[in-house]
């Protein structure tokens, strides 16, 4: 296990270097640069000075070397769009907010989604099944933006005024408390989890139900509940585990619209605007951070697999 972990660690570093390199050159290849907006009103001489200030007057290779040197000490440089900010300063200030929003969405979304998935699978072919599946398809088709604005209109002023229109808990309430602010954003985001996990679990449960060992269990005369929780569910969790890392990575970056609608001081705005404005240091930093996060979550899920299905064994080196 230790050997495996070490191997995974070095593979991760290598992956991150490749990702950083690819991101760098992709950004360098795309036309345009981060100073377009900033320098638009400047004369040519002033533009040159400003490009020099951010090192953008240097050649691509030279910039790449500088960037990679920074990469190894975790210094991606200062943002151009947000003067004075670095990836780390943004992460420090904004990540907790986005993380709480993401975690709340995932906890509620996945729990409810899995619950509904079980119901849909157990009541396969009944009205309950059809209702759940139709609703989940409907919910996943509504964009966050529309859904958020709709919820806002209904609960925060347009119809009834029982929840805050915008805002997010801060200070001592950053992680716990200020729940009323989090209700609408969480609801907006959690439906896509509900929808996808409902369908995922239903499909995979139906696969498992047809397996021999389930029939064996049935023929042994085990109760339905026991079969579901002891045999079916556990085995149907593997596709769920496979999907988790994606969800985790998404929950940090995917809440941009929610953050925008509810004026939540999260990370979404920074990432989106950094990409749009070719703010290299921020894009690169974030891409590497999110990739690292993704890789770590994949690693954790690998371990989770062994818990869910003891037949899977993780081993380092050759078998």
């Amino acid at each position: 296990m230790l050997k495996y972990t070490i191997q995974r660690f070095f593979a991760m570093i290598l992956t991150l270097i490749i990702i950083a390199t690819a991101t760098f050159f992709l950004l360098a290849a795309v036309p345009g640069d981060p100073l377009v907006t900033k320098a638009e009103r400047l004369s040519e001489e002033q533009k040159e000075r400003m490009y020099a200030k951010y090192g953008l007057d240097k050649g691509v290779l030279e910039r790449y070397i500088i960037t990679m040197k920074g990469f190894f000490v975790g210094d991606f440089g200062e943002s151009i769009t947000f003067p004075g900010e670095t990836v780390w300063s943004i992460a420090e200030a904004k990540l907790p907010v986005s993380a709480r929003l993401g975690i709340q969405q995932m906890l509620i979304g996945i729990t409810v989604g899995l619950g509904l998935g079980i119901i849909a699978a157990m009541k396969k072919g009944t009205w309950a099944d059809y209702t759940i599946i139709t609703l989940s398809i409907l919910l996943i088709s509504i964009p966050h933006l529309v859904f958020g604005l709709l919820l806002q209109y209904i609960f925060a002023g347009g119809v009834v005024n029982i929840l805050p229109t915008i805002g997010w808990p801060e200070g001592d309430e950053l992680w716990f408390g200020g729940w009323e602010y989090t209700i609408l954003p969480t609801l907006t985001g959690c439906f896509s989890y509900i929808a996808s996990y409902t369908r995922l679990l239903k499909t995979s449960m139906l696969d498992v139900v047809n397996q021999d060992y389930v029939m064996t269990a049935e023929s042994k005369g085990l109760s339905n509940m026991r079969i579901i929780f002891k045999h079916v569910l556990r085995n149907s969790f593997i596709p769920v585990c496979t999907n988790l890392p994606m969800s985790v990575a998404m929950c940090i970056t995917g809440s941009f619209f929610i953050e925008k609608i509810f004026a939540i001081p999260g990370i979404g705005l920074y990432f989106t605007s950094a990409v749009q404005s070719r703010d290299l240091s921020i894009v690169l930093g974030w891409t590497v951070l999110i990739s690292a996060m993704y890789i770590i979550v994949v690693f954790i899920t690998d371990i989770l697999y062994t818990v869910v299905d003891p037949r899977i064994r993780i081993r380092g080196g050759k078998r």
Partner: protein
Amino acid sequence: MKLRRTLALLLAVVMAFAFFGCNPGTTTTTGSSEGTTDAGTTGSQATTGPVAINGVLPGSHDEDWRDYELAEDQVLNMQLTWTSTTTLDPNDSTGSSQWTVMQAVNEGLFRVYGEPDSTQTLEPAACERYEVSPDGLTYTFYLRENYWSDGVQVTANDFVYSFKRLLDPEQAFGYASYAFPIKNAEAYYNGQASYDDIGVRAVDDLTFEVTLERPTAYFIEMMGMVPYYPIRQDIVEAAPDQETWQTDYTYHVFSGPFIIKEHIKENKFVLAPNEYYWDKENVKLTEVNLIVVGEMSTRALMFENGQFSAVEGSAEFIDRWSKEAENGTYVKLQLGRPMTGFLTFNQYAREDAAELGRPLGGKSGLMLNEKCRLAISLSVDREALINTVYNRYSIAGGYVPPGMHVAEQSKTFRDQVADDYIAELQAQYDTKEKRAALFEEGMAEEGVSGTVADVTLKMISSATTSIAKQALEFYQQNIYENLGVTIDLNILDSSLYQSVRDSGDWDMGFTSGWIGDYDDPLTMLFLWTSDSGYYKSFGGFNDEEFDSLMAQAELSTDPDERLDLFAQAEEILVTKAGCAPLYYGDQIWFYHPNVHNLNLPQLNPIEFSRVFISAD
């Protein structure tokens, strides 16, 4: 009491916004659907302008809080637009959001007030009065007794430090060149003079003196701009590093009406009154919340709920709120803004254009020909544009927008020089055939055979808003119908736009235009001088006569002569179609009737230092 001089300063980012329209529907230059046209853009049109409520014109900032019963809660909640609000460095702030905050927490030499007739006034703020030497070279500002929020007195040294810092070439501040009229400023910026040579000094603690390179009529107009606000050197140096100081409000002291109590980056500012402020008696607000709400629908909901005290009008809501404003539910404030929207023509004719392999006269090779350009300019139906696409703004029959004075003149440029160039030419070329003939004459001059039907012009834009896209399609259709030339429309993402633009492989462009920086036609017209440095952005205009008129105007200090020179230059620009001016801009805000003294300067962003909330 008040300096009856209008002043015009700028929001660079409104421009950037206008260019790239990153926030659909909220930029001031991207249109709306408002029923009336351009209320009160000029003095003469003021009768169609704002309607007085209780005898007070919207936009007036002269209301006295003593005349009202004040509400218990003196809290102002407002939007900040969706731009970077991070920097708290006056020298480095360029965005309208940044300026909104800076105006509230700092005290410049002057505070800028917008008037109901769409002009601006400069009121002495940090300075009580100023003197200009008879030769027009030395400005002496007598500062009033005011204190920073840590109790230290504001001195002339704080201005000296700020003015010199603005010019630091290492910092490469966007506004540095605006200080070039100051003696040795440009030389210092270019490394040819020393820091001590810059023409600013503290005569004593309360006397600040600026020496200019040459008499500059519009210099005083710039002294209300945020980059000229005072900065305390010891405070900057006490911060761990400059970046920290620029972004962390806890390292700041404030000399303005408010202090920053809380700041969540890119999210909100909470302001509280500054107890050391010299005029704190007239600062009634006890709390100001400036919140970045990205979604217009959310802002609208919050405004209608009363959670926002004021909101900027945006396309889909202007109609509705204007009706409400007629009922007195809201107050509508629509003021002119010295901004002109225009089409650009690719006229790179610089020597390096050929070396760089850029096509001369654009992709079609026709854009260096003034007849071709003029034919295009005349084929755009500006009235239809205003009425069907924008539903706001006013027709630009010339280039210099209303509300702009020739420095030291009391009447605006537009009041003295009629802008009937386009109308007259359109009357002369009043049929498609005549315009096509004009265009074909130009084609022949350029040695291009064929008729208008054979011509396709490549038009580029980085517009993202739906209104701007509608406008582009309008031009495309209009030019085809009224001239017969096909337009190949390319809407590009902003970064890609820049690279296509710089490659020179285009004929026409649409950028939403230019907003003046200060109250003088120079700020609009200099753009089209061949050495302005904007030839890339706007296609350039190479006219020796125009250049020479502008050079004379820049050096002249005689207002009447300058008026005349500007008028001649404008005529050349419009009749030779250096660009095709389309419309003059405006700005529209709505607020609740219990909000008083909301101040909407022509070129500075919204200001609220003397706002109070009445009880009803």
